[in-house]
């Protein structure tokens, strides 16, 4: 009896609690009520339109655009399912795609344990990722050795190319960015001026012009007869561009390190590189992890710009499929394609920002304990 009573009381309490919550958070004043009504209207409009498009009026089966070509039809999902391989791997030959998948697995094998704080052996994992993996991965995807057929970068594409540009860009821009930041904080005037000149120049121009420069001017800069791959040119442009932004983030961290740390390192007799490598940079980089991850997210999004110089990354190949493939022509093909590409980009960028948040909290809690 008492139990039932208590249960009832608890139930009534919950109802009361939720009405109170509603009153406090949504209907506390007439102004608040208006905001609530407008918000509900916006949510209703967006959600219902989206569900209609993506589910209720969407086309789920078909083998070409004609299936989606009816009046009032929503998303054209067969376009995605039929082109999924193309979007993921570009024009990489189908029988060879296992090589890309294997590379992904090799990358994840190093990356996942590295990202989980509890797993030991971080040093070995880092060395694996920085030295072993790039060599093995490059041989795997490019081929030409050990009986693997050579696959030119011209047939790389889709999400695979996006990841190549992003990962190589991140890996290359990080050390360059650190060097630039150190250069900007250096006491040697010429070093400082050269790095400031480079950083401010790159930060002052749009990435599109840097990519144009990499694609049309770089060939002119090289001795006649020497030329390199279009992808490599884009990578150089992306890495240098990203390095300049990263340098400014890292400089912020360097400036936040108290002078005493530098002086103590000097007093211990450490050389410049020992001082920076063992004392200053570990603290500075830790401080600016959120900024660094933001730079990486920006770089990941910026990889989509390589479509402007004619490389087919995920967005490039989606754009090409929706504009140039007459087999799949329908009013909703483009919308479906863009939506798909958007979701993929979003998952990666959002994932990175969540991980950065997690890392930030973890490092901050470490500070609190000590």
């Amino acid at each position, binding site marked *: 009896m008492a139990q039932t009573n208590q249960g009832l009381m608890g139930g009534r309490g919950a109802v009361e609690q939720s009405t109170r919550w509603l009153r406090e958070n*949504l209907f*506390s004043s007439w102004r*608040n009520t208006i*905001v*609530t009504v*407008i*918000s*509900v209207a*916006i*949510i209703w409009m967006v959600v219902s339109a989206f569900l209609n498009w993506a589910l209720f009026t969407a086309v789920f089966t078909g083998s070409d655009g004609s299936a989606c070509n009816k009046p009032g039809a929503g998303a054209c999902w067969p376009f995605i399912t039929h082109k999924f391989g193309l979007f993921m791997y570009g024009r990489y030959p189908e029988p060879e795609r296992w090589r890309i998948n294997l590379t992904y697995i090799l990358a994840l094998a190093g990356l996942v344990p590295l990202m989980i704080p509890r797993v030991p052996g971080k040093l070995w994992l880092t060395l694996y990722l920085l030295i072993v993996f790039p060599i093995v991965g490059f041989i795997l995807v490019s081929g030409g050795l050990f009986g693997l057929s050579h696959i030119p970068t011209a047939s790389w594409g889709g999400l695979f190319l996006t990841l190549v540009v992003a990962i190589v860009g991140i890996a290359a821009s990080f050390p360059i960015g650190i060097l630039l930041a150190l250069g900007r904080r*250096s*006491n*040697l*005037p*010429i*070093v400082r001026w*050269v790095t400031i000149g480079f950083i401010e*120049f790159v*930060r*002052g*121009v*749009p990435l*599109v*012009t840097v990519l*144009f*420069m990499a694609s*049309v*001017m770089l*060939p*002119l*800069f*090289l*001795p*006649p007869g020497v030329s390199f791959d279009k992808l490599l040119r884009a990578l150089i442009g992306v890495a240098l561009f990203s390095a300049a932004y990263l340098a400014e983030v890292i400089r912020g961290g360097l400036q936040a390190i108290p002078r005493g740390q530098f002086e103590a390192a*000097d007093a211990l*007799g*450490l*050389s*410049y590189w020992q001082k920076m490598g063992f004392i200053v940079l570990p603290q500075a980089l830790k401080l600016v992890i959120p900024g660094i991850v933001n730079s990486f*997210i920006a770089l990941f*999004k*910026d*990889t*989509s*710009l390589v*479509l*402007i110089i004619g490389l087919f990354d995920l*967005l490039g190949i989606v*754009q090409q499929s929706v504009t140039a493939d007459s087999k799949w022509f329908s*009013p909703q093909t*483009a*919308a479906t394609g*863009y939506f798909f*590409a*958007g979701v993929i*980009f*979003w998952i990666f*960028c*959002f994932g990175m*920002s969540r991980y950065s948040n997690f890392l930030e909290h973890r490092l901050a809690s470490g500070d609190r304990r000590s």
Partner: protein
Amino acid sequence: MASAGTEGTRSKLSYDWLYDPKTRGIIFQIALLAGVAALFIEIALNTAANLKAQNIATGFGFLERTSGFDIAQTLVPYSSTSTYAQVFWVGLTNTLLVAVLGIVLATILGFVIGLARLSDNWLAARLATTYVEIVRNVPLLLQLLAWYFVLLVVLPSGQNPLRLPFGIAINDRGIYLPAPIWEPGFGAVLIAAIAGIAGAVAIGIWAKRKRLATGQQVPAFWYALAAIVAPPLLVFLALGAPLSFADPHQGRFNLEGGIVLLPELLALLLGLTLYTAAFIAEIVRSGIQAVPRGQKEAAAALGLRPWQVQRLVVIPQAMRVIIPPLTNQFLNLTKNSSLAVAIAYPDLVSVFAGTVLNQTNQAVEVILITMGVYLGLSLLTALLMNWFNARMALVER
């Protein structure tokens, strides 16, 4: 100071000048300078050789040549017989147009969303957060392409424009606005408007002096508004409304006359505004959160109303935190407007670094001019915002 004093103990036996950090610094710097110089010389020599081998002209003489192509949107006089230099001006003005409009719109929307994120209203705050998290994490280029596609689908066809009041018409070639025709006497209206603005500034100064001297509040905002609106309106009516509009009318294939806003411009504006607003919202939120709670409580304790607390206490202090990153966003928006090339809006990169470069092949000159423009714009915006920032800092004190 780089490796200062670290090796000092070794010099006890024999002073080795090689271990002197000063000497090392000088040697290192000379090496760096020589390296950079060698790089530039190598590049210059290679470029000259390559250009010669490919028979590409050098120098800026190409700017005087006739372009021979049309541009869909020109804010300065231009035709296909104009020179490449004029193409440059068309591209630059189109870039500036989209940048200025985008900055204004993105700032407004960004502030609205940023304030919504801090709203007491749970739903509004969640809605704003969702918006920011979705928009920030999708590439701008993808958003631009998507908006361009959406606009082309949504807008009615060229033959059946959607007609709105005031002679505004919309079709898939753009939004057609009535073009104003200035008739004689309109100059007087402009003069009256300028006088009105001057009067409003004077009223503002007078009201502030009076408040500081006597503590009396004057409804300066309403007085100033009246000073701005009334004189030009009165002059306008007194002169018998010396202004008429040329409405866009149906031509054979399309609407003719009036001012056209290209769908490319609209897509670019939409994309840039919505994207940048998400970043500005975050800046506004963190700026307002950076104002200590005690400031608000103290203001409330003094008996200020909630909106007075916001306007007089919170926002002036938040602005100090907001302005530097806001400047960065304005610069980003300006630079991002170069993505116009992907949807063929005739901006600087699209017409100059695109079409002109393809026609003349003078990559070095064209790219350098284009980069120079963006560098100049960055510098100019930075200077302007620094000036504004300095003013805000003074006002705060």
